[in-house]
């Protein structure tokens, strides 16, 4: 017997009394927790900003797409950064003209490691946890480009912000088999005496540009 056959046989031997068919049973699981909320957009955005700030994320709000480039420049100037990495095909108009731009055309890890700042869009966000969903590819970039640089600037549209996790997860389900990363604040550890330290291996700074 192969290992597969043997393990499956052990399972089938142990589960001799079977309940209904799996799909039916799964459908019947009681889900009385909050799956949607009645929060309005204003409340949701307020909560989102509160959570982001709580986890050390810089938030810049802009009224329209035309202000994005200015916000990017503002964040980078503050951080004293001069060069920006963006996914290939990233909209030119969102990038500040005053800053040197590198587009990720399958750049090597070593090249990417030298980059300090990266910009992407996102797929969805969760207000109650301050979480951003990246479904990788396109303007959300390959996984590696938001990992090696130390500062990640992420453009989030107000319409992409859901109040609770189940809503956001439902919004990305269609893309469930693409690589997905959820980001909640900068990388962190509490492994030494439970002291929260910001920035271990992932980006040490996270900026959200919230676009109306």
């Amino acid at each position: 017997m192969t290992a597969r056959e043997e393990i499956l046989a052990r399972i089938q031997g142990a589960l001799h009394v079977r309940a209904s068919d799996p799909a039916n049973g799964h459908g019947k699981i009681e889900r009385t927790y909050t799956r949607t909320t009645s929060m309005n957009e204003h409340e949701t955005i307020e909560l989102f900003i509160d959570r982001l700030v709580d986890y050390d994320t810089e938030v810049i709000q802009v009224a329209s797409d035309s202000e994005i480039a200015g916000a990017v420049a503002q964040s980078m100037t503050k951080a004293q950064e001069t060069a920006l990495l963006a996914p290939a095909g990233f909209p030119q108009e969102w990038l500040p003209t005053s800053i040197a731009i590198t587009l990720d055309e399958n750049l090597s890890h070593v090249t990417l490691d030298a980059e300090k700042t990266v910009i992407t869009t996102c797929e969805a966000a969760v207000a109650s946890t301050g979480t951003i969903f990246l479904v990788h590819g396109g303007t959300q970039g390959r996984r590696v480009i938001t990992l090696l640089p130390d500062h990640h600037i992420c453009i989030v549209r107000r319409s992409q912000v859901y109040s609770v996790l189940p809503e956001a997860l439902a919004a990305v389900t269609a893309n469930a088999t693409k690589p997905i990363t959820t980001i909640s604040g900068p990388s962190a550890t509490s492994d030494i005496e439970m002291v929260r330290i910001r920035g271990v291996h992932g980006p040490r700074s996270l900026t959200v540009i919230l676009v109306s």
Partner: protein
Amino acid sequence: MSIRVGKAAKAPAFPIAAHKALENNQLRANVRRATTTIRNKRALRVEEMPDWESLRSAGAAIKQHTLAHLDHYLEEFVRNCERAGGKVHWARDADEANSIAINLIRTYTPKDSTAPVEVIKVKTMTSDEIQMNHALEREGIVPIETDLADMIVQLGKDEPSHIVVPALHKNRTEIRDIFRASMAQPELTDQPEDLTAAARKYLRERFLRTKIAVSGANFAIADTGSVCVVESEGNGRMCLTLPEVLITLVGIEKVIPSFGDLEVFLQTLPRSATGERMNPYNSLWTGVTPGDGPQHFHVILLDNGRTKLLEDEMERETLQCIRCAACLNACPVYRETGGHAYGSIYSGPIGAILSPQLQSLEHSRSLPYASTLCGACYEVCPVKINIPEVLIHLRGRVVREDQKTLKGKLGVENIAMQAAATIFRSERRYEASQRLARIGQLAFERKGLLTNLPGMAGGWTATRDLKPIPSHSFRDWWKSRNNTTWSPKSNMSQGGAN
């Protein structure tokens, strides 16, 4: 069969190991501080969730449902993962899983390579369970742990003492000394910021140069074939993204039916584990994505004793565990002893039920008794594992096994329990034994106290006094009491505090 749970085979019984742990004041202070911190943070983050109990119930229901159809969901996961370019291997036990991993690492290592083969690892308790690092090292492969706490444990040649924060038993000075010795950084301070920065620097080049990674998984999702890793530091993302080859070790109980089920676990796990609304990073991937991340992806599905727990419904509950370690932080026993006393990488309440069921060992027979059954573990469990109930169930197994042997039958505890059971069954015998005990205790009574009893009861009086059985018992009082009818605010019968 080589079912193994870490180094449990060589572990001493819990009371002996606990005695040693209790003598280490530094360790106890570290454990107490850490567990108190996480406990309080968890309470804060749980309180803000009005639907917490519903989430717990749904989490338990999803896990129970999955386990009841485990073969179905495993096969569904395998189909979807392989369709997306992953390759799934099945391992009956620790040795089989390790040899699959070693063969894969050999396959992907250039034949002419003379440098030692390195693999980077992202926190996986399952790999500790099967002692993968030892197996790799025996083959000349160098495993590099990349989670900060795991790194502290590995560089300090130590063992993990907690499921989520494996180095919680070490304080900053101890960690600084370990880092100074192994990173050639004699000037390193003990500031957590500096220690973390040192780890970042030490690992960054290793992340960039290493071609093979080994990870665990928090969830394997059947309907998409995806795998999910939950983490905070970004070392997980590094291991899952940078290498060319990724080997993911998954206990068979980690499968969940659907992507949508994450809406429960991604809410309960971070709050329970670290007291965060959400941990900084969750990575989800499905097979291989051209141009993004490892182009060779292998999953090892591990049994290692898990299928033995499926038959009995109470034992099966153990497999619902999502390894959040909330039960460790809540446990008043763990709080005193830390994790090493449990003699297994799975410590605390969940370890006390998981280890003895995975691997039947002499030492693990003491683990079901390493609890006061206070229920704090069950109260915080995000998938509602009734740990006290499983502990009692396992105690029953230990007693039944013991009673089959002559030594067990003649054991002091068994005789005392049998005698007590006989006495409790009869009023006459109960009263007679009270009278007898009153006489018997005279030999040990000093100034109206029992301070030095023999045998098992000596475990009590070594550190505690005991009041002797009073000359006038409740039963005597009840028989002789005035037959006054009770009503509120009326003067009640005499008696009162003594």
